[in-house]
Structures are given as C-alpha cells and as structure tokens.
C-alpha cells in the first residue's frame, strides 16, 4: 500500500506538542447558557438573517441563509431563544466586532425536523449537492471556504484528496476524529466520490499519527469489502511529517507531484481536496440529515489541566471551554485560536467557537514568550530555504516594507500562503508574515484602484465604439444610395445598349439579363452574412458585459473564483473583438459588390469586352481574397460555426463570380 510521494520545497520541523491532547478520547461539555453565532464564519458573503430577537429556535433550525454563490447557511446549534442580534467580539484578524446571533439555550436540545437520506446512491448528484449546501458546510481546516462550491465544480475531477495531514503543532482534532470515527469519514469520502466520480481517492496522513493511519486503513478495507461495487477504493498514504504539508497546495504536490497553477484552483488539475472534519460533516449532513452545528476542537496549551479534544457546539464562548478544562485563565499570556504557526491570537475569552476553530491554545509566557525585538535582515537566506512556495521572503520583506508593490508582486508575493515557516526560522526574529499580509493588502488596494480606472477606460472605449458604429451606419446608407444611383444609371445604359443591340440585332440581351439575376443572390448572401456577423458581435459583447457584471458581483462577495471569471471575461473580450473585426472586414464587401455588378453587365456586350472584363475579373479576385482572409481570420479566432459557414459561402460566391469573369480574359488565368 505504499504509494509514491513527492516533496515540496523547504518546510520546517517545529516541535510537535501533540501528545498532550491525544491521550483522552473526544468528549462533550455541558451545554453553555449562551451561544454566540457570528454570521460570517466562512469566506464569502455573510448570510441573510432569517430570525429576529425573541424568536424561539429549534436545534438545527436555519438561522441565516447563504447570500450569493460563495456563502454558507448557519443553523442553531441548540434549541432556545434568540436574545440578541448585534455586534459581538469575534475572531477576526482586524479585531473588529462582527454581527452575531445570540441564542439563550433552554437545555431541551429539541431538534427541528431533519431528513436523513437512507441510500444516497439512489439520489442524483445535484440533490446531494443541495443537501450539503443547505447544511452550511465550510472547509473546517482553517480557511472556511464553502464546501459546496468546491464540490460543485464543473471540471472533471480525477482525484479526490482527503487532507488528513494536520501538520500544525498542537492540533489533534483530525487525528482523534480519524481514530474514533474512521468508518464515518470513509463513508463521507464515498459520498463525495459518488458526486464527483473521481478515478482515485487519496488520503494523506502524516506519519506521526500511526493510530489514525491504522484506523483509516482498517475502515477503508472494511468499506471496500462491504460495498464491492463502490466507485473506487480509498488509498491511505502516509506522508512524511513536515510543516506545512497540510497546506492544500502542498498536500496536492506531495500526493500527486502536480502544482496548482498560480491564481488557479485545484480543480484546474482535476483535483478536489477536503479536510477530514469537512468530510465528516458532509457525511453527517447526508446520512443523518444534520446540519453543521458542532465541531471537534483541540483544547491544549500548558495552562490547560485537562487537555483533549472536545465536540463543541458552534457558538460556545471560549471561556466556557476554558472553565470546563480547568484552565487558569488569569495566567494566560497568549490565547490562540488555530495552531501556533497560522493561528490568531485572541483578544478576549468571550470569543465564540466557529466552524473553522480547530484548536484553542492557552499558553503562558513560558510556552509562547514574546518575540524578541526585530533585528535587521542579514539576508542569510534561511527563510528562502524553508519557503514551501519557493519564494524569496527576504526580498518580499524589503519590498513590502518599502511599499514597492510592483516589485513585491514581481517576486510573487501573492503566492505566499502565509504559512509562517520563514518567520519561524528567521534568526533576526523578523515577523515576516506580518509584512506579507500588509503587502498583500497594499496589492489588493492598488488592484481595486486600477480596476476602477480600467472600468472607466472600458466605458470610454464603449462610448467611442458606439460613435464609430453610428458613423459606419451612416456611411453604409450613403453607399447604398450611391449604389442605387449607379443601378439607375446602369439601367439607363442598359436601355441604351438594348436599343443599340436591337439595332444591331444582337441576340445577347437575354443572356445579359440572366447574368444579372444570377448575380443578385450573391449580393443578398453577403448582406445576410453581414447581418449574422453583426448580431454575433452584439451577442458576444453582450455576453462580455454580463460576465463583467458577474465579476463585479463576485468581487463584492469576495469570491475566490474571481480569477477564473476574469479569465473567462478575457476570452469573451477577445471573442467579441474578433467578431467585431470580422464584421468590419465584411462591411466593405457589399459596397464593392455593387460596382462589380454594374461592371459585369456590359461584359456581355462584345464591343467593350476587353477592358471591362479585366476590371471585373480583378474585382472578383480581390473579393475572393478578402473572403478568404476573413474566413481564415475567423477560423484562427475560433469564431462560432455560424460565422464560419457564412464566410465560406461568401468565399464560394466570390469564387464563382471570378470564374465567370476570368475565362473572358485569357491572361488572367496565367496571372493567377
């Protein structure tokens, strides 16, 4: 069962400190009196509140509904009364309070109506997706990205990865979850596999968790034996212990050797990666019908008398946890939510547990002493050696510090995953990550500004284009008038010719009229093509506008797939401009056709054959070339089938025309 693994660049080995919290099994705490539920526990837009103060809510009842695509539902973790909807201290790096729903629990734990699914294999994928969406599940490893967005990807997925690495020191919540509920996790994986239909399922676990690996292997085997027809088997891969192997990008690299493109998503590689807690929550949502209302949180730190993992209701204030783990709160020097490498230090013990709180560390000043004062960077390169993103942190540090945003971006500041490995090793004790967060903020700021000016420029260009279009329309009309005039003149000429012909008793009159009528449809054809091109162009630009609007919306929502939308927009933009180009190229052709036609007629009168025929042939040739070029351009730019067909009919008509004229002039054949 050993599978090849790859290595990522750098990495560090911080002291593990996991043993403190793994000895006890997962336990529960008495119900807290008050649950504080921040509306924003995930990346994306906060939900819309559905309850009001004074409402009685049941356990599992929907409190806030997802707003927009990248957002998540929020449910009541226990039954009780809504006593407040207001700003409360929450865990956010900015330290600003966030809007919360506060529930006073009644201790009855009365469930609302839930809908377990007996056999998810009978459902279709969209239904399951909706179930997961409704359960308000977000990535529980730390980032809190709404899970249904990841699962609902349109790309074909070949690999499903369970990120059970848990590389951060101190945290053991996934470890314990795997030890005790391995079968449920495997079941969750099978549900995901049913939806995504991948070729393989990989579970990456660091080799410092042998019990978890064994439990998962056993569960995986049992599951294969129980359902021989399962879509694909689960492979448990033990990966070397090194921080930050649990980063999404890093675990993908370790297990598949592939790198997620910068600014892209794992799904671009056909990979979806989920955290252990998340998969477990998905399983609960589908099999038991229970929304995400609790999570496993590690309580640890040297001030905690009873460290361990606790299944805690969302919204439970940290003070409640401290109290029930017998922690001497007054000695706390630093209280950290998350791990020591990437976690945030909390300002208050009243901050509630949210969907992403995987660990609480209560430490005194022995365990996490204050960092010594920052010394100058000596460019020793220790940071670059450990950076998993293969950046040059010392350069990023200089440029972030001096606000040279362009240079920082050139050194790929935006690819920094803020893992903190560089700060960890820096001998000069420089809080590098802090500088990078600042730098990223600056980049985003400047981006917003350029976007603003870009939009202004686009508006201006659109305006300019409208003006051009109007001018073009006028020009067209003018040419049509001219053509009509020419037609009239030609008719007069014809009448004259006819008279002459009649006088000369020449029999070619009939032929000439026939010729003319055969010319007409080709002209119509061209007009039609023009029409289609025009509508194509407008369609394309309309689509482009829509996409742009979507982008703006998404930006507002802080969606993560902005980059993809933006790419799409770029494509649409090129398409639109291509279509417009094709339109422009096609525009002059009717104007040319008309004189050609007027030339063509006299061609049949034997007296003027020579010169007029040459001209006619030449014009026709030009037309052929034009049409050919347009066709080629369209082909190259991937224009739609319709456009291509029209252009090729155009070309053919032009070719026939040429053939009609060319034989009448013997030299043309050679010249071609």
């Amino acid at each position: 069962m050993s599978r090849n693994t790859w290595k990522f660049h750098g990495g560090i080995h911080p002291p593990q400190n996991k043993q403190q919290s793994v000895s006890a099994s997962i336990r529960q705490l008495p119900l807290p009196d008050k649950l504080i539920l921040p509306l924003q526990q995930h990346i994306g837009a906060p939900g819309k509140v559905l309850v009001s103060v004074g409402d009685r809510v049941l356990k599992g009842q929907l409190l806030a509904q997802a707003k927009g695509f990248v957002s998540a539902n929020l449910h009541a973790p226990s039954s009780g009364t809504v006593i407040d909807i207001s700003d409360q201290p929450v865990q956010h790096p900015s330290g600003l309070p966030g809007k919360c729903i506060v529930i006073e629990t009644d201790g009855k734990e009365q469930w609302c109506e839930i809908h377990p699914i007996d056999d998810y294999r009978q459902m279709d994928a969209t239904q399951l997706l909706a179930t997961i969406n409704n359960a308000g599940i977000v990535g529980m490893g730390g980032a809190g990205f709404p899970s249904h967005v990841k699962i609902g990807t349109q790309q074909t997925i070949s690999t499903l990865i369970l990120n059970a690495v848990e590389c951060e020191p101190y945290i053991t919540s996934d470890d314990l979850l795997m030890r005790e509920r391995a079968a449920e996790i495997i079941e969750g994986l099978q549900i995901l596999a049913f939806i995504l239909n991948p070729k393989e399922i990989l579970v990456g676990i660091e080799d410092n968790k042998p019990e978890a690996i064994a439990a998962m292997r056993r569960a995986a085997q049992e599951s294969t034996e129980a359902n021989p027809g399962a879509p694909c088997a689960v492979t448990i891969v033990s990966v070397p212990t090194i921080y930050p192997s649990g980063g999404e990008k890093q675990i993908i690299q370790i297990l598949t050797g592939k790198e997620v493109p910068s600014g892209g998503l794992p799904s671009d590689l056909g990979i979806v990666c989920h955290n252990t807690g998340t998969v477990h929550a998905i399983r609960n949502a589908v099999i038991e019908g229970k929304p995400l209302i609790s999570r496993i949180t590690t309580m640890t730190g040297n001030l905690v008398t009873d460290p361990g993992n606790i299944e805690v209701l969302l919204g439970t204030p940290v003070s409640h946890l401290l109290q029930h783990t017998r922690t001497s709160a007054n000695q706390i020097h630093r209280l950290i939510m998350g791990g020591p490498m990437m976690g945030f230090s909390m300002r208050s013990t009243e901050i509630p547990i949210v969907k992403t709180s995987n660990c609480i560390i209560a430490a005194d000043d022995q365990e996490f002493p204050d960092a010594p004062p920052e010394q100058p960077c000596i460019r020793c390169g220790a940071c670059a050696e450990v950076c998993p993103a293969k950046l040059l942190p010392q350069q990023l540090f200089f440029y972030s510090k001096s606000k040279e945003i362009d240079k920082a971006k050139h050194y790929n500041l935006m690819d920094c995953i803020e893992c903190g490995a560089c700060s960890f090793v820096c001998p000069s004790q420089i809080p590098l990550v802090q500088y990078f967060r600042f730098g990223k903020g600056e980049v985003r700021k400047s981006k917003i500004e350029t976007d603003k000016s870009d939009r202004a420029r686009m508006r201006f260009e659109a305006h300019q284009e409208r003006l051009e279009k109007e001018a073009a329309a006028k020009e067209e009309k003018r040419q049509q008038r001219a053509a009509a005039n020419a037609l009239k003149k030609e008719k007069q000429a014809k009448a004259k010719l006819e008279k002459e012909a009649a006088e000369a008793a020449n029999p070619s009159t009939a032929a000439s009229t026939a010729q003319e009528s055969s010319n007409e449809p080709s002209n119509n054809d061209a007009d039609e093509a023009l029409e289609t091109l025009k509508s194509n162009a407008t369609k394309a630009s309309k689509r482009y506008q829509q996409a742009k609007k979507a982008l703006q919306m998404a930006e507002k929502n802080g969606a993560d797939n902005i980059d993809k939308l933006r790419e799409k927009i770029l494509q649409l933009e090129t398409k639109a401009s291509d279509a417009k180009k094709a339109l422009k190229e096609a525009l002059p052709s009717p104007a040319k056709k008309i004189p050609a036609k007027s030339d063509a007629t006299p061609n049949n009168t034997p007296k003027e054959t020579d010169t007029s025929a040459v001209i006619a042939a030449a014009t026709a040739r030009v037309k052929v070339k034009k049409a050919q070029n347009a066709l080629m351009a369209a082909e190259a730019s991937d224009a739609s089938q319709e456009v291509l067909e029209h252009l090729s009919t155009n070309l053919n008509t032009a070719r026939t025309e040429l053939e009609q004229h060319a034989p009448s002039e013997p030299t043309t054949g050679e010249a071609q």
Partner: protein
Amino acid sequence: MAFISVTSPHSHRANSTAGVMQQLLLATLPGVLALFWFFGWGILVQITLSVITAVLCEAGILYLRKKPIAFYLKDYSAVVTAVLLALAIPPIAPWWIVVIGTSFAMVFAKHLYGGLGSNPFNPAMVGYAFLLISFPLQMTTWLPSEGNFGASTGVENTLQLIFSSSPADDASNYDAFSGATPLDELKTQLDLDQSTDILQQQDVFKGFIAGAGWDWVNVAFLIGGCFLIWRKIISWHIPVGFLAGLGILAAAFSLYQPAQYASPLFHWFGGGCMLGAFFIATDPVSAATSDKGRFIYGFLIGLLIYIIRTFGGYPDAVAFAVLLLNLAAPTIDYYTQPRSYGHDKPNRGTAKKDS
C-alpha cells in the same frame, strides 16, 4: 479579559543572528591557529586591535545615530567584520594600519549605508581594499613562516614591530624580517620570465602545495568552512562556485602552458583563497540571494580572482573580486529568481508595471 494581539507564527526556532555570528567566529579558529603557528603572535595582536577598534566605532556610530547601543553590539556583527579583516592583514603590519582599516570598514562601509543588513559591500573587504590601495608596502609584507607559534620572533619583538612608533624604522625592520607571500613571489618571478619550476626551488614555496605555511592555513580555513556548511550557517553554493571558477580557469591555463601558469592546487591553497571562499564571499548581506544566484556569484568571483592574480597588478585578488561581485549581486538576483510554486517559469529581470 483582553490580551495583546500578535500575528502568527507564535513559536520560533531558537536561533539568533548573534548565534550565527558566534558560530562564524568559532569556525575561524582553525585558521587563526594555523596563522598563529606559522606567523607568530602578530595575528593575535591584530585581531585584538581590530576587535577593539570595531566595537568602539560601532558604539560611537550607534550613539550618533541614536540607536540602542547594547542591542546592536550584541549581534556580534562588528566582531565578525573585525576578525575577518584582521585575518587578511599581515601579522606584523603597524598598529595604525589595522585601526584605520577597521574604522574605515565600520564607518564608511557599514554604517554610512545604514548598518547591518544594508551594506552593499562586504565591510571587511572594503577596509582591506582601502588599506591595500593606501599602504601597499605595509600591506604586502609578511613574515616568512616559522611554524612554532612565533617562538623565534618572540612576543616582545612582535609587539615592538607592530607598535614601533617611527614609520621610518619600518623599512629597515622589514628588510630584516619580512618576506613576500608565495603568490607575490610567484608573480614577481614569472614577470622575470622564470617558469613555474621555481615552485620547487625557492624557500618561500617549500610547502606541500603552495608555499610554506600558506597551504596549511588554507586547509585550516577549509576545515572551518566545512564546519559552517555542516552547521547550515552558509550554503555550499558560494564556496563551491568560487573554487570551481578559480579551479577551471587555473586548470585550463596550466594545461595550456604549465611553465607559465601555476596549477589549480597552487591557486586553491595559496593566498586568501579559502578564507575568501568560505568566510568572505559568503557574507550573506552583500551576496546574491537565491541558490542559483549564489553559485553564479561565487563562480564569477573565482574567475575574477584568477584573472586578477594572473594578469592584474596585485598578487592576490579576493578583496577586489568580492567587491566587484558585490556590485553585481543585485543584477544576478534579478535574473536568478527561483521558480515559485505554481508558476511555469521563474520571473526574470526587474518588475514591470502590470506584470
């Protein structure tokens, strides 16, 4: 209850800039001992003088710059600069040489550019180059090597040489005691149309490779350098590039005309080669940043050293080569960015708008 808020990470590896510098000092010990064995007490006197001067200068400048003096002195960087400079200075050079050189290094090369971490040039080498240009005579006069911890010259005699107040006496003193370094001698002899055969004949060259004593000094520095690499204080890229650059050119020339050009071994173990490769060129502040860049940086230093040693006006060239490449380090950095995760290829050159 409120706590102060600090950003992640919350734990740190227990290493410090001072620790790095201390290990560096430790690594110079073998070299210092070797110099002591072959050239006597002078080297210890020079180091003492240099360190005292450097610390005083640093303190003075920090005071002028209104910075916390004790905090910055504790990073040991001044001591490192002083020791490296002292190691490069002839053991019997008059006292004011090392004092002037060290003060120049600390004040002009280090603090005028903004102190530790901001100096584009290696301070020790700026000091050395300054001295070499200003006092060529005193800076190229070495004692002949002895090999008994300076017993034959004696402590008093050495002190007298160094502190003899009258520069006028120097000339005679030098005549009595001094000798040129093997590199110097070789250059002179080759200029006199001698062939490299003299390597076997003259006294100065009576070492196992590159002249009396010098080869052992270089071996000692090599040992210290390996210690640094083992302790991960420096990466192998610069020294290896350095020695490769020097060795390749030397090998090419000595294969082409062995009578005219000394062998790579002579170049590797002659002069300040190992000191330069492991202690001087690896000064991270003024070197290139990425691994690839560091290798190129070291390699170019090696090439330049050979070129200056063989065709230039000075017998040894570590200082000039290092300073020239210090100047080129930012450019090397621009073109050797590593390929970051998720990028198809590394970025090159300087940042463009909208890149």
